[in-house]
């Protein structure tokens, strides 16, 4: 009993403050979360438009597609269909998440209308090391994915970064971040392609 009394005597301020600050953060989050989510949607749409140049509008082609993770977990993602002015499918885009060097990396990945080649990727969110890992955003690295075959990719430390194939040349000094991006592509692409092709969304030109 005296132990419990001693515990509360010592820590009551900490307990009360934790509840108070928790409440404060909850209020701030409740007030601004809608706006933050809307900002993320706007950014996602902007990035998808950057990747799929002919896109005029987007609709959801598949909702909550289950992607088997390498850690035997299942993650879910939505696949967006990009339509041009005449309503023809010009590509697909989806959000892919994986572990980076120090935090999760969230990418927007685009594939063409037949799901045969990648149209590239853009970084939706990442906290990679400034000056090193954050170079995954640089065109030197990201342009290697544009027009690469939509299948498993392989990371190599040296090679010709101008040659477009399934080999991706890592960023010098940021191998872990480069590896993380390639791993994200490899985790998602098979399931996404299979889903689009079996459901008849890819290549039907509608």
């Amino acid at each position, binding site marked *: 009993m005296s132990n419990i009394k001693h515990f509360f005597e*010592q*820590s009551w*301020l*900490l307990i009360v*403050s*934790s509840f108070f*600050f928790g409440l*404060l*953060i909850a209020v*701030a*989050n409740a007030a*601004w979360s809608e*706006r*933050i989510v809307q*900002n993320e949607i706007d*950014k996602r749409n902007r990035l998808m438009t950057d990747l799929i140049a002919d896109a005029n509008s987007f609709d959801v082609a598949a909702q909550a597609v289950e992607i088997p993770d390498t850690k035997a977990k299942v993650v879910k993602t939505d696949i967006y269909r990009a339509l041009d002015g005449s309503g023809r499918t010009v590509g697909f885009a989806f959000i892919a998440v994986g572990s980076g060097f120090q*935090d999760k990396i969230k990418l927007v990945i685009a594939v063409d209308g037949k799901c045969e080649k990648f149209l590239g990727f853009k970084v939706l969110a990442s*906290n990679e090391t*400034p*000056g090193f890992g*954050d170079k995954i955003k640089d065109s030197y690295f990201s342009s290697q994915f544009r027009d690469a075959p939509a299948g498993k990719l392989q990371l190599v430390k040296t090679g010709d970064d101008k040659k477009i194939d399934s080999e991706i040349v890592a960023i010098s000094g940021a191998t872990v971040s480069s590896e993380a991006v390639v791993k994200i592509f490899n985790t998602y692409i098979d399931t996404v392609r299979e889903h689009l092709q079996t459901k008849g969304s890819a290549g039907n030109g509608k």
Partner: protein
Amino acid sequence: MASEALDKPALGQTFIAGLWNENPVLRLVLGMCPTLAVTAAVRPALTMGCSVIFVLVCSNLVVSLMRNLLKPHLRILMFTLTIAAFVTIADLFLKAFLPEMSERLGPYVPLIIVNCIIICRAEACASKNGLAVSLVDAIGMGLGFTMTLCVLASVRELLATGKIFEQQVMPAVFVPWAAMSMPVGAFITLGLMLGLVNTITKKKA
């Protein structure tokens, strides 16, 4: 009346100390992480400065209010909890209202939690003084930090791009010094600023 008269010069001195004599960057050499990392341009430097002022003011006020209740062995925990709460609010605010700037500042806004300036002011000032002194100290220190960041960022942005606030300032013939936007530019400019301040203060002494 007498105590009020005694308080006034102390408040003024406290305010001025943050701007010059105890400037957190140039005299105490604290908060080096954001000082070097977000000063490639004036806009992110100003945003970081304002975020730090907000966190400093709020944490100093809260720590000052609870100073008589603090247990010595739990005080650092309480400071960190207080600072983390206000940094989270600042981070959410930037994500909601300045999403591009929030993205540009990246992990450096959440990293304010471990910024030594804030925990230093909580320990050295707010935990020992009343609300007025703590508030003035926070504003002085915050402004000192923000002004230093802005000066550093102005020099770097001007030399790296020929612009200030993304507006062209230098004549068209000016060749931008790309190195100034890189980490090397931050180290050189900060080193020169520290040297200049040391020279001025030595002359005064």
